[in-house]
């Protein structure tokens, strides 16, 4: 029991990220509303960012900016932060394109839910 608790406490960061990912993925797949789908996509991506950032952490570490000379410190791993800066931009870009598409779909069909869209597409 203690071991399980230990394992949980030392890994809960990943668990949280994964639960968020699952929530996001579920919304992405199951939601009918296209905008909600995109929100799901965003949650999914953000959860991945969280996952990256959390494994960058080092116990007792500080932000990876050098302290003045002579002061020793533990810095957290800087690389995941860099990667996630890039990934955030990608996520934003995809969201922008997705939303533009939804705008266009709404203009063409007058609906933004999947079932309604399916009907409209079939009718044409």
């Amino acid at each position, binding site marked *: 029991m203690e071991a399980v608790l230990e394992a949980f406490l030392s890994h809960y960061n990943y668990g949280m990220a994964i639960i968020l*990912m699952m929530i996001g*993925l579920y919304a*992405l797949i199951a939601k009918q509303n*296209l905008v909600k*789908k995109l929100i799901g*996509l965003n949650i*999914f*991506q953000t959860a*991945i960012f969280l*996952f*990256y950032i959390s*494994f960058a952490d080092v116990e007792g570490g500080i932000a990876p900016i050098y302290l003045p000379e002579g002061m020793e410190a533990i810095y957290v791993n800087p*690389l*995941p932060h860099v*990667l996630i800066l*890039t*990934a955030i931009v*990608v996520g934003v*870009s*995809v969201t922008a*394109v*997705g939303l533009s*598409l*939804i705008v*266009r*779909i709404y203009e*063409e*069909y007058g609906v933004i839910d999947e079932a309604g*869209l399916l009907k409209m*597409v079939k009718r*044409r």
Partner: protein
Amino acid sequence: MIEHLPVLLVTVPIVAALLILLLGWHDSRFCYPLTLATILFQFAGGIALLIEVMREGTIHYYLGGWAPPLGIEFVIDTFNGYILPIVLLLALATAVYARRSVEKEIKPEKIVSFYVLFQLLVTGLVGMTITGDIFNLYVFLEISSIAAYTLIASSRKPRAYVAALNYLVLGSIAGGFVLLGIGNLYVATGTLNMADLARLLPASYGLATVHTAFLLLVIGFSIKVALFPLHLWLPDAYTEAPSAVTVLISTVMAKVSVYAMFRVIFSVFTTAYFVETVPVTELILFIAAVAIVAGAVLAIAQEDLKRMLAYSSVSQVGYIVFALGVANQIALEGGLLHILGHAVMKGCLFMVAGVIIYRLGTSSFSDLKGVAATMPVTCAAFALAGASMIGVPPTIGFASKYYLVLGALEAGHWVYAAVLLAGSLLAVGYIWRFIEVAYFSASSHHEGGDHHPAPGVREAPLSMLVPMVILSILCLVLGIFVDPLMKIVAPAVSLLLGGA
């Protein structure tokens, strides 16, 4: 110059994309020649790199001078040295082909941004091909994906928006999986450089983290290559996209995704992992076999040329993944050959579909009766590329099938070899749909002349015809001169099997 060529292949087109935008803003007539010139430059560069690689061996290029694992490197070895010219050849052919079809299918005010995105898509794919850093691969993957989503939606059809959004959703899931997989690899090893990963991973082969990374990456790339049953985005996307875009994504983009899958599986995980540590080859073979059969059966059921070709792609991807499952020298040679062969023949076939849409405004089989009489060259190109798709000797499609079956039998996969052979029969089923409609659809008149042409329907314009005919002739030429080709393919396969 030559030592900086790898980076120039990516940066020059990015600058060119900006130029296309700026000059195009001034006058949209600049866009096309500029795009063509850039891709021509890339193509020449790709060939030069291939020659260089064949002569000197693997090229490493450290971006900014930072050696891995700290910096990013471009690596050109025999494998991507082989893929790169294929990608750029098809991109070039599509660029030549695109002008007339774009004029007709894209609204004039969108042409500038169309060419910018076209250029960015190609560049993203080139970047994916030559990078040696797995996160960099992800960045380029997303560049090309975003460009592809929009290009698909750029046709005038409202349905294209839906198709593009579908693709966006699934593509983003794929992207997310790839990103997660990369994260897991990084957690396990602490590096992002592919060669470095291959060096460090064996120590962690037992970790669940590594297994999960493998699964996530394979699933992610499977979505991108549309491996059955993760192909759901593909038929709509291919069908609704403008013709030139369909050609580009069905050949170049599909092939680069396959390349990335092979690269990650062979050069990062290596055969030692996926053949011995986690024996998934049987599973891969099974999925590939199902893809081959299911894709072909679905293709046969279609009533529209473009959609039929889209499902055919689902089937053909199965052949390439099949090679992955067999994972011996000769089958992989067949697989790599099929990457080239399928790109060439499917490019040609989709070009034919595009030309038919250009002239007739439709690609539904019921409207194509006797079209061979009015568009003889187009239909001849289809017949030749179609024969290659079926695997009639001596086309390239036959050669790759021969190698694949030989490889499968050598590995003792009798049943799967039979499935491969049956798959090519199913290909007859769908290719023949068009052949019958175009050439032999019940002409009741038997007087001396040929079929009466429908009014207003003529042979395709020259700029569309030339790349199409060249590709179809390539199907035959590559098939006949397959032996010299193997001098490039065989080292590439040895490299894959030998690890990083």
